[in-house]
């Protein structure tokens, strides 16, 4: 059984049936111990998906959420109060995008880490906190516990946030672009750390990013999002080597590399649609070189290869190209 | 209130809240009159009655007064013993001293030459000019010459102004909280003059009239001065209204017509012409103003101060046609523009309202008024700076216990406050000053009143009452005239 199974998740801006949808009919599974990458351009709904799983979306979106999010077979969307709190932090955790903003500026690192450790039922909070900081490679942890967030560098903050996220030894950790705000060298170190921690704790990870480099480095499987839908999922190598959705293929081609300098980069014309203006049918069709009339109706996710699904009427042609 | 034996009186202000007679204004008499007593008291008609002085006489030409003191009146402080001539002499000398801030100090200083004490119980006051009304005018309860204990005050030196006062009154000061509350308690034993029913009396300083009315309604205050407009509401709530009758005279004074002082005279003003002044008097329906703004509590004024000798001087009737006629004759058929400055005092909250009412009526005869509200100190200091002003102002005419003083203050160029003078009037006043016969003086005073009325020396409005709201716990209490406070005689209801 999947650890996390998202079924037909739709998130609208409000309860009304005609309200614009940020996420539409999204289904995704995460198996124990596995790392799933969620890639997509800005505004495609990655964060909304991540936050929906932990029920962290603002009231407007919470009202407009439908579908199922099954955690060990139980629907997260139906949980309330204690069960939800048990889930958050305890079994599932999250590392947010902005290390500058995720720590409360008025409390010390120790107190914020302590809150999480206390919930995990640790006895000696001080020692546990020190150990937790040491685990994320923070030098002189005892001192750092007394620091306030503004006294730490961005990389260190992000590591503190991870320590908090991991404090209760969750089974799944959702990372929402945790490295976007970091410098390249610091990002590299943080990714390494994350991977090591994941291995050590045997967690599953849902890693949200827009960077294919990051996906390539740490993920087992990838889901590509476009305009609120997952358009393609599959094992990492499969997706990189053999993309079946024209969007995935174009995106991969558009990434510059240090190894070669082509004269021009292959491009996708136009820009991703905003939430209110998504086209009928396949949202990518206005930008797609392969688009036909058929694309005005919504394609379904179809298996392309073992574990590899894509939602495109022309998947075969993409494969052939 | 009744159950706790304290009579609560809400006053608009404590003024300086100093405790010696000479260290501030007469407004403090509200509470000081319970402590200090006077040589002379007044009956209902304003005639002199014995006070700390049992009897008194004056010499032929009115320049020497001899007061015989009452025996055995004890001060509230035992060390002071009973009232002696030395105490009285000191009290008088103190009130006319240079640093005295008492209202009548400067005129008293002018009149009184020396005070002598031939024996322990006799005080002789020598005057520099005749004064036939010294008893009620300066030594009476309407003024500020309260008798203090000499040894006590001298012993305190500079601090006397703020120390607990020692007098012969029926009450002694218990506490005085700056700007908030003054409490007095009844002295032990019988008092020679009054037999107070309230064990203690507490004064509260409550500047806002609406709050004072609320205190009466809520039973928190037993007595409070109120405005005329509050009367109907209070009566509905079974609060009775006690008025001091015709004690003050709201009036409109005109600038620049001190004709005998070139600096204070501006002949170009419309009202430099007597016909215009008369027209301004005719144009206002004063009775309606009394009925509506003063709740009927007053009579149409014939002068700027209540003077008995003027009882037969007829006030100007309401006659707008006559007013228009006079204006036309004076060369203002279409009227003119003018500025009327106004301010509120306590009591005297009605003055701005009265200004607006006068403006309403004047507009009917073409006089276009711009009202400029201000405050009394600035208007007064401007008015008294010795120049000719081209505006009019509302004024709370002063009720002088001695009417001659009032006349002099308003209509003699010797007074820095004068608002109208003429050579003729100065002569009339001089004549009055030199007259020594009582009845003749009265006649001359009436003549002066008639002259001022005919010349329309001001726009006379109302001889108004001063209403107090009195709560149900107070039994018998009445007040005769302004500046005479008899809270020590307030009764308790059953």
């Amino acid at each position, binding site marked *: 059984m999947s650890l996390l199974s998202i079924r037909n998740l739709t998130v609208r801006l409000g309860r009304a049936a005609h309200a614009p949808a940020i996420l539409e009919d999204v289904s995704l599974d995460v198996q124990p111990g596995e790392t799933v990458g969620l890639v997509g351009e800005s505004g495609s709904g990655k964060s909304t998906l991540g936050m929906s799983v*932990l029920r*962290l979306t*603002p009231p407007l979106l919470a009202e407009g959420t439908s579908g199922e999010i099954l955690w060990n077979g139980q629907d997260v969307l139906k949980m309330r109060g204690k069960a939800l*709190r*048990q889930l*958050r*932090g*305890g079994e599932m955790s999250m590392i*947010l995008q902005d290390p500058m*903003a*995720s*720590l*409360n*500026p*008025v409390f010390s690192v120790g107190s914020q880490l302590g*809150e*999480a450790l206390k*919930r995990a039922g640790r006895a000696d909070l001080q020692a546990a906190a020190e150990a937790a900081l040491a685990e994320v490679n923070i030098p002189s942890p005892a001192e750092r516990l007394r620091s*306030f967030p*503004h*006294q730490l560098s961005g990389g260190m903050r992000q590591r503190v946030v991870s320590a908090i996220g991991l404090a*209760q030894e969750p089974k799944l950790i959702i990372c929402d672009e945790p490295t976007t705000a970091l410098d390249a060298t610091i990002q590299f170190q943080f990714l390494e750390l994350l991977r090591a921690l994941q291995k050590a704790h045997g967690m599953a990870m849902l890693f949200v990013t827009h960077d294919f480099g990051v996906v390539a480095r740490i993920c087992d499987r990838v889901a590509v999002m476009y305009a609120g839908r997952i358009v393609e999922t599959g094992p990492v190598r499969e997706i990189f080597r053999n993309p079946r959705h024209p969007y995935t293929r174009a995106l991969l081609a558009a990434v510059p590399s240090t190894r070669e300098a082509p004269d021009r980069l292959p491009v996708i014309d136009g820009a991703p649609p905003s939430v209110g203006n998504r086209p009928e049918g396949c949202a990518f069709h206005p930008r797609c070189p392969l688009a036909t009339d058929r694309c005005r109706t919504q394609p379904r996710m179809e298996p392309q290869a073992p574990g590899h699904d894509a939602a495109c009427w022309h998947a075969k042609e993409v494969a052939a190209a | 209130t009744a159950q706790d034996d304290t009579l609560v009186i809400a006053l608009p*202000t404590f003024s300086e*809240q*100093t405790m010696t007679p000479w*260290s*501030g204004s007469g407004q403090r008499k509200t509470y000081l009159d319970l402590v200090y007593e006077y040589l002379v008291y007044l009956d209902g008609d304003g005639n002199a009655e014995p006070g700390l002085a049992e009897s008194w006489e004056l010499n032929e030409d009115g320049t020497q007064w001899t007061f015989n003191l009452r025996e055995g009146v004890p001060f509230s402080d035992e060390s002071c013993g009973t009232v002696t001539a030395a105490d009285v002499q000191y009290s008088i000398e103190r009130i006319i001293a240079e*640093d005295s801030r*008492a209202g009548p*100090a*400067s*005129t008293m200083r002018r009149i009184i030459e020396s005070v002598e004490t031939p024996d322990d119980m006799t005080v002789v006051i020598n005057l520099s000019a005749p004064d036939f009304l010294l008893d009620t005018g300066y030594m009476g309860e309407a003024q500020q010459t309260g008798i203090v204990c000499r040894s006590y005050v001298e012993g305190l030196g500079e601090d006397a102004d703020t120390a607990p006062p020692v007098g012969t009154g029926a009450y002694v000061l218990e506490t005085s*909280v*700056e*700007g*908030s*509350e003054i409490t007095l308690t009844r002295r032990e034993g019988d008092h020679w003059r009054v037999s107070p029913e309230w064990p203690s009396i507490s004064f*509260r*300083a*409550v500047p*806002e009239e*609406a*709050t004072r009315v*609320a*205190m009466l*309604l*809520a039973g*928190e205050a037993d007595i409070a001065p109120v405005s005329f407009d509050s009367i109907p509401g209070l009566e509905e709530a079974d609060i009775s209204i006690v008025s001091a009758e015709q004690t003050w005279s709201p009036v409109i004074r005109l600038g620049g017509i001190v004709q005998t002082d070139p600096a204070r005279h501006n002949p170009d003003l419309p009202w430099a012409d007597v016909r215009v002044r008369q027209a301004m008097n005719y144009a206002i329906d004063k009775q309606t103003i009394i009925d509506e703004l003063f709740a009927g509590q007053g009579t149409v004024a014939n002068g700027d101060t209540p003077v008995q000798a003027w009882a037969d001087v007829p006030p100007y009737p309401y006659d707008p046609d006559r007013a228009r006629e006079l204006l036309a004759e004076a060369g203002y058929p279409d009227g003119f523009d003018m500025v009327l400055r106004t301010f509120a005092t306590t009591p005297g909250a009605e003055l701005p309202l009265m200004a607006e009412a006068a403006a309403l009526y004047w507009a009917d005869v073409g006089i276009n008024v711009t009202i400029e509200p201000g405050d009394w*100190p600035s208007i*007064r*200091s*401007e*008015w*008294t700076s010795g120049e000719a002003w081209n505006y009019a102002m509302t004024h709370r005419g002063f009720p*002088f216990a001695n009417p001659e003083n009032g006349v002099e*203050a308003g209509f003699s160029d*010797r*007074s*820095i*406050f004068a608002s109208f003078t003429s050579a003729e009037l100065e002569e009339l006043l001089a004549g009055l000053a030199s007259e020594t016969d009582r009845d003749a003086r009265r006649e001359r005073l009436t003549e002066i009143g008639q002259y001022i009325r005919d010349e329309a020396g001001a726009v006379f409005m109302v001889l108004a009452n001063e209403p107090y709201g009195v709560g149900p716990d107070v039994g018998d209490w009445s007040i005769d005239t302004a500046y005479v406070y008899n809270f020590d005689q307030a009764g308790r209801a059953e």
Partner: protein
Amino acid sequence: MTRLIVGRLAEALAALLLMSLVIFLLSRVTGDPVALLLGDSATVEDRDRLIEQLALDRSLWDQYLTFLGNALTGDFGQSVAAGRRDALDLVLERLPASMSLAAVALCFTLVTGIAMGVLAAITRGSAVDIVVRIVALMGQSVPAFWLGIVLIYVVSVNWGLLPTSGYGTWQHYVLPALTIGTFTLAAVTRLVRASMLDALGSEYVKLARIKGLSEATVILKHALSNSLIPVVTFMGAFFATMITGAVVVETVFAWPGIGRLAYESIVSRDFPVIQTVVLVITALFILANFCVDMLYLAIDPRMRDRG
């Protein structure tokens, strides 16, 4: 830290100096107190003597410098109107009443404003939110004197629950504090609601939820603690509003505070008292702002590390 305090002190002195000059000049051009002190039938000589006594015949500069020199030695002169009382004594005597009223009013505004702000923020966009904001706004749109009088008539006269006016017991504080506090209520509510909304949408509140903390802890500890920082910055301004409002409210409720003293001294042109009162109020304001800064340092660790 020392530099901060020294700098503050220098600023405060400059402000006081400037204020003393402004007040001095303003009060002098408003006419002199002589006319008021003179009896009704005073003569020209009487007037001149009094002017000399009060030293009003000297040049303005001379008067100002004398005043300043004396003030530095703690001598603010004697009241012209109230006997020969020390102006400073008069003011200090009235200070406790004003300060305690301001304190109670501030507590009232803060407690109510914060509660209402939090409520509005967590029910954002709902009818509750709108009702809370309108109620808060009503306070801001009713002139204090009118509210005060209406409260007196309703609560004291009609219901007989509280004393109408005066000073002394705790009951006396309720209505005036309510009246003064109501005016700033809308501002506090608005501020708390806004910063609460910011905080509730912030990443650190999300993180607190991710940790699985209870909703009460999330709102009252994590969100509120941050929302209070802007409230603290505005506290100096609230204090100023309270002192200013005091002139009106102290008049209505017969409260023996410095607001009324100031008003009365202006009416009677009691220069020494006017000057002292205004300077004391300014000093108080500066002190309040200083306290706010210190408080700020205490609750916002980010501030502590700035020079």
